[in-house]
């Protein structure tokens, strides 16, 4: 098990997993996303291979209305 923070909330994942697997496990809508791990943007092309590790601080963002 690993403990990470996703969008400011502590989350426990069964094991180290790829970003893509992590997104599935927290059930985010698949579109219009960007992911940041420890303050670095991880490009979409790498979501299937980059692993999320214990202690990682993850942000999953989308676009919303704003001025």
């Amino acid at each position, binding site marked *: 098990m690993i403990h990470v923070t996703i969008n400011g909330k502590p989350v426990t994942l069964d094991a180290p997993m790829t970003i893509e697997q992590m997104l599935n496990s*927290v059930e985010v809508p698949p579109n219009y996303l960007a992911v940041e791990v420890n303050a670095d*943007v991880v490009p979409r092309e790498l979501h299937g291979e980059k692993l999320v590790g214990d202690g990682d601080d993850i942000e*999953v963002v989308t676009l919303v209305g704003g*001025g």
Partner: protein
Amino acid sequence: MNPDQSLIVGAHSLTSRLIVGTGRYETMAQMRDSLDQSGATCVTVAVRRERLYNQTGENILDFIDLDRYTLLPNTAGCYTAKDAVRAARLGREILRTLKNPGQDWVKLEVLGDSVTLLPDPVETLEACRELVADGFSVLCYTSDDPVIAKRLKALGAASVMPAGSPIGSGQGLLNQNNLRIILESLKRDDPAYPVIVDAGVGTASDVSMAFELGADGVLLNTAIAHARNPALMASAMKHAAIAGREAYLAGRIPKRLYGTASSPTEGVISTRPYGSSASAAE
């Protein structure tokens, strides 16, 4: 399309000189209709955490025609250069995957205070420097301070966007003198440099005034979204932008202290009841 009608910022040529925000609407449908009525071709969006665990809700991008609008992501909600840079990079990543032309630019907004929503000039300068180095076209939201405006341009900002008044305040252009100074200073030797008035617009005359002063564009959100009839206000803003820009290009008459008759003074059938005052002689 008359090329003079285009607003050119960085690599982008926008056929409307209005940039409209997508926030604060009652419904997504109202937002969509208002954007349509405004005639804008560029709209701003914000970067925020996505809902986890499949909470229901709409995504704004389902209500924005991405073939019609270029998205301009903002860094709203950031109080430090570090966070603003992170937000800009995340916005760029989303637009890259959407293949939207807005993936190379950002509206930089770094606030100093959550009550006044005034920008933090120190953090804004730092973030601008970093984002320009990272290849962004940076449109910098700033105050009406001409010194900061000059510094932002010197750092390579693609556009400087001075506020008319605090965000969402509807007070219009509070310091027209400073806006005029900024326009003169940034466009000296560089008349095409885009200066966009951003923040505080309340109604159509504010938009028109900004263009009459010589602004290249106006960015607004709340004045439309919180109007009693947002779609109608959006239309008013569209017309105001055209009117103000045409008035600017047409060249206004000077303001005079005394009157100048617009009907001929020769051949009148009347007699002037009093002698003409000496000071009225031209």
